[in-house]
C-alpha cells in the first residue's frame, strides 16, 4: 500500500502531495527527500482518486485517463528525453513514420479529427560476443513487441506471429547451437505477455488476441539464445608494428540484405593507457565516417552514419562485400608488448537497424475487429534491431 504520494518540482517543492493514511509522522518524508535527487518536472494536475487508503484501485491506464479532466499541456517533444524502447524510432530516419510515435496519446489530425491508427513495433536488442578468432561465443536477443494504439473504442485486435514459432528450448542446456541454425523455425527460450493478451488460440495458430488499452505498452517480451545470423561480423586485430607503434585493424562486415540500412553506428575500442597518438587510415571513398582518438578515456572511436550492405549483382546471387577500415595507432611502448591484447579492447559496437530483425520473428497479420465497413485504421508494423552488447574480443 502507499501511505503518501508526492510529485515534486526539480527544486523539491511539492507540486502534488497526498497523505492517504495519515500515519506517517510529520517530517519523515523530508528525511527521504534529503537523500534523493529529483528530476521530475512535469505539470501535474490533481492526483486522480485511484488510491483509496493507500490501496491502488486500478492499474489500468485506460481507467486512469478517465479521471483526468484537464486539457493536457503539450510538452515540446524535443525537450523530453526519449522514453521507452520505441524511442529509437525517433532517431531521424525518413523511412519510418517516426513522428507519429512521439505524438501524445490524444492524437488529433490537423483537421481536429482523431486519426485512427495503431503501431506495432518489434524491437530487438541483440548481444553478441565474438572471440578473438571471430567465432560467436555468446549471442542473445531480448525482444519486445510494443504496441501503441490510437484506436477509438478499443476494438479487439488479433496479432499473428510465425506459425512455426516454438517456445522453450527442448535441449537440456541453453546455448546449444546445434539445433536449427538458420532453418527457418524461430525458437524462443521464453516469453511473457501483457495482461490484456488472451492466449486462447496461441498454442494452435500462434495468434494473440487482445483489447489494447490506450497508449503504449509491451504486448510480449521474449528472449532467444538460439543461434542467429548477426548483422555485423566484427574482427579486430592489434599488432606490433615497430618498437613504439602498433597497428589496429578493424574489419566490419555488414551481413544483411541490400534493402536494409544500418544507421548511427559507433565502434569503440579502448587502447593501452600509454597510447600517445593515433592516426587513422580510412578505406578509399568512405563517406559519412569520422574517426577519433579520445585521449581522456583512451579510446578509439569510429562513427558511421550509415552502413549499407555493398551488393554486387551477378547472374544469380547477391553477395555481400566487406567494408574494411584500417586505423594505425602510434603509441609508446613502456613494457613488453606481449600484453597488447590484454590492455586493449574489447571492441564494442553500437548500431540501429530499422526494418530488420535478427530473430526472424514476424507479425503475419494484424487484424482489427471492424466496427463498420468504412472503418479502416492505419496499421504500422515496424521492426528494429539495436545493439545491446556487441563485442569483439582481441
Amino acid at each position, binding site marked *: 500500500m502507499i501511505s503518501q504520494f508526492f510529485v515534486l518540482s526539480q527544486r523539491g*517543492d*511539492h507540486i502534488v502531495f497526498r497523505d492517504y493514511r495519515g500515519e506517517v509522522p510529520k517530517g519523515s518524508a523530508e528525511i527521504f527527500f534529503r537523500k534523493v535527487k529529483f528530476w521530475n518536472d512535469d505539470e501535474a494536475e490533481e492526483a486522480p482518486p485511484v488510491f*483509496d*487508503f493507500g490501496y491502488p484501485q486500478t492499474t489500468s491506464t485506460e481507467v486512469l485517463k478517465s479521471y483526468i479532466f484537464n486539457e493536457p499541456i503539450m510538452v515540446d517533444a524535443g525537450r523530453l528525453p526519449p522514453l521507452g524502447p520505441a524511442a529509437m524510432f525517433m532517431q531521424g530516419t525518413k523511412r519510418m513514420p517516426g513522428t507519429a510515435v512521439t505524438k501524445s496519446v490524444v492524437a488529433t489530425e490537423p483537421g481536429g479529427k482523431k486519426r485512427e491508427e495503431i503501431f506495432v513495433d518489434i524491437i530487438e536488442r541483440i548481444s553478441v560476443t565474438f572471440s578473438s578468432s571471430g567465432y560467436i561465443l555468446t549471442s542473445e536477443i531480448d525482444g519486445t513487441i510494443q504496441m501503441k494504439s490510437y484506436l477509438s473504442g478499443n476494438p479487439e485486435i488479433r496479432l499473428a506471429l510465425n506459425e512455426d514459432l516454438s517456445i522453450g528450448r527442448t535441449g537440456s542446456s541453453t546455448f546449444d547451437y546445434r539445433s536449427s541454425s538458420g532453418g527457418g523455425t524461430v525458437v524462443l527460450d521464453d516469453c*511473457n505477455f501483457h*495482461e490484456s493478451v488472451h492466449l486462447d488460440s496461441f498454442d494452435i495458430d500462434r495468434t494473440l488476441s487482445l483489447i489494447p488499452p490506450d497508449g503504449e505498452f509491451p504486448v510480449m*517480451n521474449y*528472449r532467444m539464445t538460439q543461434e542467429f545470423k548477426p548483422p555485423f561480423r566484427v574482427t579486430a586485430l592489434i599488432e606490433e608494428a615497430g618498437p613504439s607503434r602498433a597497428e589496429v585493424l578493424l574489419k566490419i562486415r555488414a551481413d544483411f540484405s541490400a534493402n536494409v540500412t544500418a544507421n548511427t553506428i559507433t565502434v569503440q575500442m579502448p587502447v593501452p593507457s600509454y597510447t600517445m597518438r593515433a592516426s587513422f587510415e580510412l578505406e578509399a571513398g568512405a563517406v559519412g565516417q569520422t574517426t577519433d582518438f579520445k585521449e581522456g578515456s583512451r579510446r578509439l572511436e569510429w562513427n558511421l552514419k550509415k552502413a549499407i550492405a555493398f551488393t554486387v549483382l551477378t547472374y544469380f546471387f547477391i553477395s555481400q562485400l566487406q567494408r574494411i577500415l584500417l586505423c594505425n595507432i602510434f603509441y609508446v611502448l613502456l613494457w613488453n608488448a606481449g600484453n597488447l591484447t590484454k*590492455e586493449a579492447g574489447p571492441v564494442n559496437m553500437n548500431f540501429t537497424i530499422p526494418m530488420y530483425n535478427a530473430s526472424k520473428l514476424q507479425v503475419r497479420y494484424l487484424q482489427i475487429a471492424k466496427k463498420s465497413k468504412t472503418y479502416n485504421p492505419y496499421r504500422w508494423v515496424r521492426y528494429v534491431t539495436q545493439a545491446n552488447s556487441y563485442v569483439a574480443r582481441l
Partner: protein
Amino acid sequence: MAPTVPTAAKSASPSQPSGKSEVADLKQQLRQLAGSRAPDADDQRRDVFKRVISCMTAGIDVSAAFGEMVMCSATSDVVTKKMCYLYVGAHARAHPDLALLTINFLQRDCRDQDPTIRGLALRSLCSLRVPNLVEYLVTPLTTGLKDPSAYVRMIAAVGAAKLYHISATACLDADLPASLKALMLSDPDAQVVANCLHALQEIWTLEAANSESAAREIERHYIASQLYFTLLNRIKEFSEWAQCTVLELASKFLPSDNNEIFDIMNLLEDRLQHANGAVVLATIKVFLHLTMSMTDVHQQVYERIKAPLLTLVGAGSPEQSYSVLCHLHLLVMRAPMLFSSDYKSFYCQFSDPSYVKKLKLEMLTAIANESNTYEIVTELCEYAGNVDVPIARESIRAVGKIALQQYDVNAIVDRLLQFLEMDKDYVTAETLVLVKDLLRKYPQWSHDCIAVVGNISSKNIQEPKGKAALIWMLGEYSQDMHDAPYILEGLVENWDEEHSPEVRLHLLTAVMKCFFKRPPETQKALGATLAAGISDTHQDVHDRALFYYRLLQYDPSVAERVVNPPKQAVSVFADMQSSEMKDRIFDEFNSLSVPSYLFTDKDHRGPFEYSEDLTNLTVGAEDPENVISAQRYQENDNDLLLSTSDKEDNGTRVSNGSSTSSYNAPSDLISPSLLSSQPPAESALMTTGVPTSSSLSNFGLDDLLGLGVTEAPAPRPPPALTLNSKPVLDPGTFQRKWGQLALSLSQECSLSPQGAAALMNPQSLIRHMQGNYIQCIASGGQPPNYKFFFYAQKDGVTAFFLVECIINTASAKAQLKIKADDGTAAEAFSTLFQSALSKFGLS
C-alpha cells in the same frame, strides 16, 4: 494532514501566489458565494474551489477557509462536490468541531441516487479521521457494503479499514469484518474483493497483535483453504496490484496435502508468463514456499522459474533487471548446482551497469563446478583487462574464489600467474592477495607461485593489501626465495615511507620468519625492523614489535615456535554469509530485503566479527600470568595467526575500511599481558645497533654471525625412496613419536671434509637436507659437536621417518639414529639419508 513546506518558502517563488493574502481573498469570495442564487453561482464556486484546491496541493495552508468551504458545500454540481470532499477530507482532522458541520451533507449524499456521489461521500465521510464522529460512520458503511453499485462497495470495504483505525471497537461491534469476509468470498466485482482483502488483512494483523484469543480466531481464517482457492481461482480478474496481494497471501498457505499444492501451482502456472515482474516474483514466491517440503518438486520449480526470471532480467530497465537479478542471485546462492548449466546467462554484457556486473560475477563464482570452471574462468580472465577497474578487480577476485572452492586449481593458478605479467598495478595487487590465499590452502603450489612472485618488484606495488600479501609470501617462503632477506631488508629501510600499518605489521612478522629460516642473512634486518617497529607511532605495530623483541629475549626457540609453527593448510575460509541469514532473506523473497541484502550484509557481519574477537579475548585472558608456558603460547599464536589471517581475508573480500581495526585486535590482547610481566626496555633497544645479538647468545648462533652464505644448495640426488616434498609434523608429535617408536637403525657414517667445513653454519645443512625432502625439526650444539633432529615422510603414505643425527665436525663423523613408522623402509631411508648427507658441501 499538514502541508510540509512552510508558506513563507512558497511565497518566495514567483509562480506561486503569496499564501496569506490569497487565502484571505478566497475566504472573502466564498463568503459572497455562500448564499448566492445567481445563475452562474455554480460556475463561480467551481472556479474558487479550484483555486483553493490548487493552493492546497501546492502545500499552502488553506485550513483557515474551512468554515467558508462548508458553507458553500450545498451544491448539486459533481465537480464542485468532489473538490469540496477533497478539501474537507484534508482538513477535518485539524478542525474537529467544524467537521461536525460537514456530517450532515455527507450523510445526505451517501443516500444520493447517483452511485458516484454515494461513493465519493462515503469515502469523504470515512476520511475525516475525527474520533468523535465515529457514530455517524457505522450506518453508512453497513449500507455501503450492501450497495448495488460495485463502486460504493469498493469504497465501503476500504472505509471499514479506515473506521478500524479510528475506532477498532466501533468497527468490531458493527461486525464489519464478518461482512467483509462474506463479501470477499462472494462479490462479483474483483476490485471489491481486493479491497475487502486489503481491509481484512489490516484488521486481522492488528487484531492478532492485540490479543491471543483473537489471534487464534484469525488463524482459523487463514487456515481455511476455501479462502485461498476462491481468490486464486479469480486471480486473472484482479488488477496487478491486487494479484500481488493475493499471491503474497497464498505464499503463507499451509496445504493439507500435495494435491492442493499441485492444484495451486497449476492454477498459477500462467502467472509466470506475466509481463509484470512483481506478479512473476510473487508467483515464484508461492511456488518456492509451497514446495519447501518436497525436495524434488522444489528443484523442478527452480528449473521452471529460471527462464521467466532471465526474461525479466532482459526485458526491463537496468533498475528492474537489477532487482530481478538480486532475486536470481539469492536463488543461485541457495542452489548453485541447478544453475550451473546456465552460466552463459550470467556473462557480463558490455552495456550492463557495474552493479549488475558485480552481481553477475558473484553468481558466476557460485555456480562454477567441474563442468564449467574452464569456460567461466576464461570469461572472467577477459574481464580482468576491463576498462572498468572495480569490475576488473572483482573478476580477479572471482577467479581466486573459484580456485579456492574448486577443482581445476592447476589451470587457475596458471591464469593467476599470467595476471601478474599484465603489469597493471591493481591487477598485480589483487592477484598477490589471491596467490597468498591459494598458498594457504594449497601449499603444494608454492614452487610454481614463488618462482613468479619472486620476480615482482615490491616497488611496483602501491596497494597495501597487495604489498602485505607479497611480504607475507616473502616471510613464509624465504627459504625458497633466494633474495627474500634482501628484499625484506630493502623494505625495512623504507619503513618510514610505508604508510599502511597493515604492511608494517606484515613486515615485522615476515622479517621474524625469515630470520628463523636464514638467520645470518636476516639478522641485521631484524634488528633494524624491531627498532623501527618499537619506535613506530602506530600502537599495534609498536606492540607487536615489542612482543617479538621480548619473545626473542625470553627464548628464541619459543619465539621460533610462535612465529614459524608448522603450517596447516587452511581447508575452509570463513563463509561470507551465515546460512541463517540466507534463510531469513529467502523467507522475505519478493521484498526489499533481497536487493538491500547486498548493502546491509556488511552491517550484519559487523557483530559476527566482533563476537569472534570476543572468543579470542577469552583465550588470551585465560592465561595472562602463564606467559612462560610455551605450549600455551603456541596455542595462542595459532589462534592469533588463524584469526588474523581469516579476518584479513574477510576484509579483502568485503570492506577495506574495517579490516585494519579487527585485524589487529588479537595482538592487542596478548601484548598487555607481556607488558605487565616485564618492564619495558625500549631505551636499551634504541641504543644498541644490533639488539638481537645479546638475546641470541643462548641459541648458539653467536659464532655464526658475520658468516656469509655462499654455498648454494646441493643438487638433488635421484632418490630411491620417494619422499613427500612437504611433510608436516609439529614438534609435539615428533617428540611423542620419538618416545613411542623403537629404534630401527643405528649407524655411523662419515662426512666429506668440505661438508664438515660447511657445517660451520648448521643452517646450511638444514637447507641442504630440505632440498632432499628431509626436514629439520630441531638443532643445537656447540662446535665441534652438533645435534640435529630430522624427519621425513614417505610419499603418498603417512609413515614418518625420524632421525637423530649427531655430527662431530672435527672427525667428520655422524651418528645416526633412525626411527620409522614403517620399519621395513628404514634401511632404504637410511641409504637415502646418508647419500644426501655425504653430498653436503660438495657442490
